[in-house]
């Protein structure tokens, strides 16, 4: 797991002179990981991906893929092991799925025609293979884009916002697909997203970027641990004001009322039961209790000023 598939050092890039779009970015994607690249819209995720693939000329710094510096000489060799889906998939809408795959297969060479049908099967598009892409739904296009990136059995797949515009079913399918690829073939997968829940459910590693700077980079597990001391939860009750005054006796420090919900922070899960007991003894009706996502808070606190 120590080998790095993607490694950038002091990566700098700007579209215009007066603003740095990527600043001293140190990205480290371990082999075999599912790396979630997280950041709000416009934080530099797509720019970083374009820099990794050599679509943009970096101002300074280095990009190494599979331990090899990415430059004019190594470009073809390195890209041979990469499959990418950059933002909206590049598809020829007047052609059908097979033609679209054939084009990429021809460019890459050495790809058998049976592989085209294989990847169609993987992304579940076999039934729509002869339909023009024009008639596809957004989710189908996204899946075809993924199929194209799978063609060459790449060691690294880079997916830029792969679930953008997908419906819940499509998101779940995409998630399963990504995990399967990683598990079955050991493919390293690099996903960018602005949705924390996505990354949390799929990824093993996470990097959080804002304004072109890396704010946090580690495994998802250690990100969770770093915030696990306090548990935040909220309760919906029929009489929130009464509830607040009753709870004051419990000597909980962090308690507040927000949009009719009581917000409480406790140290252990057992204390949640205590809170419920106190409320129920006073015959206050409880409609729901939910633990708030710590990661979400962390993400917001990291990405907001």
């Amino acid at each position, binding site marked *: 797991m120590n080998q790095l598939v993607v490694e950038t050092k002091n990566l700098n890039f700007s*579209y215009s002179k007066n603003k740095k779009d990527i600043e001293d970015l140190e990205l480290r994607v371990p082999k075999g990981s599912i790396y979630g690249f997280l950041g709000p819209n416009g934080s530099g995720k797509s720019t970083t991906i374009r820099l990794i693939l050599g679509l943009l000329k970096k101002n300074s710094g280095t990009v190494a893929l599979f331990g090899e510096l990415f430059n004019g000489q190594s470009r073809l060799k390195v890209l041979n092991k990469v499959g990418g889906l*950059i933002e909206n998939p590049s598809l020829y809408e*007047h052609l059908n799925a097979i033609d679209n795959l054939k084009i990429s297969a021809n460019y890459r060479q050495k790809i058998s025609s049976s592989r085209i049908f294989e990847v169609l099967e993987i992304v579940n598009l076999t039934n729509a293979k002869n339909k023009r892409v024009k008639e596809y739904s957004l989710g189908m296009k996204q899946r075809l884009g993924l199929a194209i990136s799978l063609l060459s059995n790449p060691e690294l797949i880079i997916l830029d916002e792969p679930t953008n515009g997908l419906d819940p079913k499509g998101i779940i399918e995409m998630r399963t697909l990504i995990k399967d690829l990683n598990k079955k073939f050991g493919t390293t997968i690099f996903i960018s997203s602005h949705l924390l829940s996505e990354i949390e459910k799929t990824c093993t590693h996470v990097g959080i970027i804002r304004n072109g700077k890396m704010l946090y980079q580690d495994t998802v597990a250690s990100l969770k641990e770093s915030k696990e001391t306090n548990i935040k939860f909220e309760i919906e009750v029929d009489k929130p004001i009464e509830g607040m005054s009753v709870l004051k006796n419990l000597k909980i420090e962090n308690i507040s009322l927000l949009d009719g919900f009581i917000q409480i922070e406790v140290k252990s899960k057992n204390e949640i039961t205590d809170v419920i007991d106190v409320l129920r003894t006073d015959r206050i009706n409880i409609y729901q209790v939910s633990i708030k996502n710590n990661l979400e808070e962390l993400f917001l606190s990291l990405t907001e000023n």
Partner: protein
Amino acid sequence: MSAILYYTASLKNELIKLKRTFAFWLTIISAVLFPILFIVAYIFEHETLVPAAGINPWEKFMVTQIENSTPFFIPMFIVLITSLIMQIEHKSLGIKHLFALPVPKSSIYFGKLSIVILAIMVTYLYYYIAILLSGVLLGFVYPDLGFLNFSPEHLRYIKILITSFVASFGIIGIQFWLSFRFKNFVIPLGFGMFLAIIGIIVSQAPQQSIYFPYSFSVLSVSLGEKMPLIFGISSVTIFSIMCFLITSVLGYLNIKKLNIK
């Protein structure tokens, strides 16, 4: 993998991409446009167009058609077809995908450029076939026009067409570069159409316009015998090929370094 393999793969793909596109149909439409107009003209005027005895009707039919329409039309056709072929790529956001593939950027640039040239050549071929067919058709409908009694001097007309094609070469390099560089259809199209019209106007002053690529197509026909020669070759031909070579190489060097957003 050798460069030839990359190049042929690129060519093959460009042909697949042309399937069912307007660019494909435009080659056919453009080729039959003038022959159809000439059929109509000959139908209405056929009595006045009956040739004197022993005169080959093909000569007038071919030469008026080729010399009076093609030189003006070809530059505009090149502007349009080049933009359309590149637009297939821009519309599908293809360039970012192509440039992230393990393929030399040169094979993509020159593969596409070759297809543009091929499309133009094919249009010339269709055009020539369409003129011949329209002449034969007129010969059947109006036997007194005499088209069936004579055969056309193919070599002579093909030579005129080749001269016109080579003279248009220069602007292919420019238009292709612009169309590749700018996603927005309007830039290469507007720029090209504007210069094509300017080219027709300034061709009235051949001494100056002999250095202006957009005039070459008209000059190649209008100058006739007065064409200045360089080493015995028409100077328009030489300037046109030079312009093509320079702009193609510069275009490639520019595209290669471009940031793909």
